[in-house]
């Protein structure tokens, strides 16, 4: 395993305890206190600070269990809009350093630094450190940065030195770095695969990387072979700067009560349809296939699907399809406690099919109206405007909707 120092250069940037750190940013009074961020239904933990983690709180843990472990922690409902704003800021900083940035998730990204040493007149490690410092100065968030020759190694490197750390693994130092990592530290190797590898004497990442190719192929198949090559310094997974099209988008939720009133179900379904439509507009997507799901009082789930002749992002068309599907599913006396809509067969909305007849053209002309509504929601919050046919549905409780606080940015 002798390779050049930098046959390629990829940086992985991972924000530390992102949601909790965002909350701490706008609530300076919480400094020094453990923070747990709850899921949208306030049911379980989705993020926590390191001290909460040390107390044994894990992601996905029910909130009542977490409160037993750490009653003094602050439990806050998630505010994904605010986290999204900070995430946008973070990625904007990364794009200053390289045009090739992949937003892997809301708080994690890859940056292709290959060839940029002469442009920035600094080494790859220095570039990683510059990104880390700039993010801290301009957003107040700490991130951990890993810089290495492949994507997998860069991710392992950033995980190896958290929080607010920098790890640089050049080709020459791969073996040294991996000798201190277990197979469980390799992204893509979970508990079961690690247990399998251990049975064959492969405990460290280095032992795995040095295992014969045939053995890796036999034990872990093709995906294992890809990881093995990446750990040996051969870059297979590049940076994906174009976000792949989602296979599906769904908006479903419990209604918070059981009902036999189709009007109430229709109001909830219209609400989900509206949310889905707004998200599709924001992401510039359209869909051809829509599925309505109902969860009955017996917890049985029933679904019905409709294929439209052509993909759409028009709310009128989606609402009409959803209502048609609901009426196809609904039986008198039916008791329902949750509903939702799923869009599949997604396509980019920039290539829109034009309509032939006036009625449909009018619907197509409503698009600027939906876009304005989407911008209003983006700017003032999702409760600022909603369709009248959702009015039967009880609105979101005040305790959850009125907690917006202005984020504090340091502008430079």
């Amino acid at each position, binding site marked *: 395993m002798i390779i050049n120092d930098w046959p390629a250069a990829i940086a992985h940037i991972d924000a530390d305890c992102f949601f909790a750190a965002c909350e701490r940013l706008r609530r300076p009074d919480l400094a020094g206190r453990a923070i747990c961020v709850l899921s949208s239904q306030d049911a379980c933990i989705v993020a926590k600070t390191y001290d909460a983690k040390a107390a044994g709180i894990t992601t996905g843990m029910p909130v009542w269990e977490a409160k037993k472990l750490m009653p003094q922690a602050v439990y806050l409902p998630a505010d994904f809009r605010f986290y999204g704003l900070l995430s946008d800021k973070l990625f904007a900083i990364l794009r200053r350093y390289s045009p090739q940035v992949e937003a892997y998730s809301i708080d994690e990204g890859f940056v292709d630094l290959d060839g940029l040493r002469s442009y920035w007149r600094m080494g790859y490690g220095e570039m990683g450190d510059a990104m880390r410092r700039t993010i801290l100065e301009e957003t107040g968030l700490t991130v951990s940065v890993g810089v290495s020759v492949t994507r997998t190694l860069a991710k392992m490197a950033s995980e190896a030195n958290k929080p607010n750390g920098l790890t640089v693994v050049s080709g020459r130092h791969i073996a040294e770095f991996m000798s201190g990592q277990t197979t469980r530290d390799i992204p893509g190797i979970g508990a079961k695969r690690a247990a399998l590898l251990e049975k064959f004497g492969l405990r460290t990442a280095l032992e795995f990387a040095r295992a014969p190719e045939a053995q890796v192929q036999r034990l872990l198949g093709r995906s294992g072979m890809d990881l093995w090559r990446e750990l040996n310094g051969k870059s297979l997974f590049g940076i994906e700067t174009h976000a792949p099209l989602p296979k599906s988008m769904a908006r479903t939720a419990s209604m918070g009560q059981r009902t036999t009133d189709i009007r109430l179900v229709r109001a909830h379904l219209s609400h989900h349809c509206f949310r889905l439509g707004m998200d599709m507009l924001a992401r510039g997507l359209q869909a051809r296939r829509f599925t309505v799901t109902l969860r009955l009082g017996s917890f049985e789930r029933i679904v019905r699907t409709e294929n439209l002749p052509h*993909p759409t992002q028009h709310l009128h068309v989606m609402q009409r399809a959803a209502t048609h599907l609901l009426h196809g599913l609904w039986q008198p006396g039916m008791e329902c406690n949750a509903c939702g809509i799923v869009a599949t*067969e997604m396509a980019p909305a920039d*290539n829109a099919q034009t*309509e*032939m007849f006036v009625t*449909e053209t009018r619907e197509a002309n409503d698009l600027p109206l939906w876009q304005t509504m989407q911008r209003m929601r983006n700017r003032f919050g999702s409760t600022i405007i909603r369709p009248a046919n959702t009015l039967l549905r009880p609105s979101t409780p005040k305790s959850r909707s009125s907690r917006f606080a202005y984020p504090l940015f340091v502008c430079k």
Partner: protein
Amino acid sequence: MHVLLSRQDMLQAVQRCQNIVERRHTIPILSNILLHADDNTLHFSATDLEVGIQTSSSATVKKSGSVTVSARKLFEVIKELDTEADVELEVADGFVALKSGRSRFRLATLAAEEFPEMQHDEEGINIELDGADLAAMIAATSFAMSSDETRKYLTGTLFEVDKQGHLCLAATDGHRLALTRVRLQQNARAGQCIVPRKAVSEIRKLSEEVAGQVTLRMGDRQVSLLAGDHHLSSKLIDARFPNYGDVIPKSNPHAAVVERLALDQVLRRTMIVANEFTHDVRLQINGGEMQVSAHNTEQEKANESIAIEYSGPDIEIGFNARYIRDVLGALKSDVVTISLKDGLSPVLIKQDMDSAEYYVIMPMRI
């Protein structure tokens, strides 16, 4: 009921009924065929309450009567019987005993009285025309019907007799329109109706199979086709069809003439890398050449050019390639004429300037 008839006659009649019967229906008797024997004829009826068919076959009737039996089972049984032996049906004790050669079957029945009575509109516009012509008209238009159940009025084909004595068939899904017309040999009053998709398909099959003249009857509530011994009827879609005349371009000044099969092949190849749901392709028309290109979100691309006869300005326009291919498949000529105005206006595709078929396709914004 006790009858004897040829296996071939019975297979054809049952098969025709089988097309109408819905496999899964909440009303059990609608899965059955009504058999009624009298006057040396065995009558077959099937319906799904929207579309119904009545057909008959000559038979030796030993005892007249009626019964209903599962369409699917009867079809499966007769299909497998000895092709040379006649079929004997006898009703006894709530079952049909079916004999053919050395085969014996006993099939369950439901009472004939429970079978829904099929009503026929006696009034309406009667049109006589050649079955093959009617089938060809449907083949030229039916692909453009919509499958969008939320816009019911587009899920059928418009049958219209205009004031000039033409029978016009029009189908559209809101993005493309297919229209064909034929001059009628007899006088018929003007009128129109929307025939549902399933009935359109059955009218086409029946018209194709029956050689010679057929009678199409367009009533207020029903459309019927009388073809030989067969009487097909269907409820209509009770809605207003869009005013299709308004969307046929009247002033598309630039005509491109292109080889039909060659363009079809280019599109077939190019759309491999187009988005799998929108099938969007870009046509760049300049001089004597049409560039066809496509790309997708995985950054894959395709590009091919084809020679055309064209003398208008350069035009760049996007389409769902499938819509163009459907039209090219419906036309039979060697070349087609594509009339254009600009990159955002509907195009008109015809076999030639005088042909009776009109195809309008709305472009995509690209």
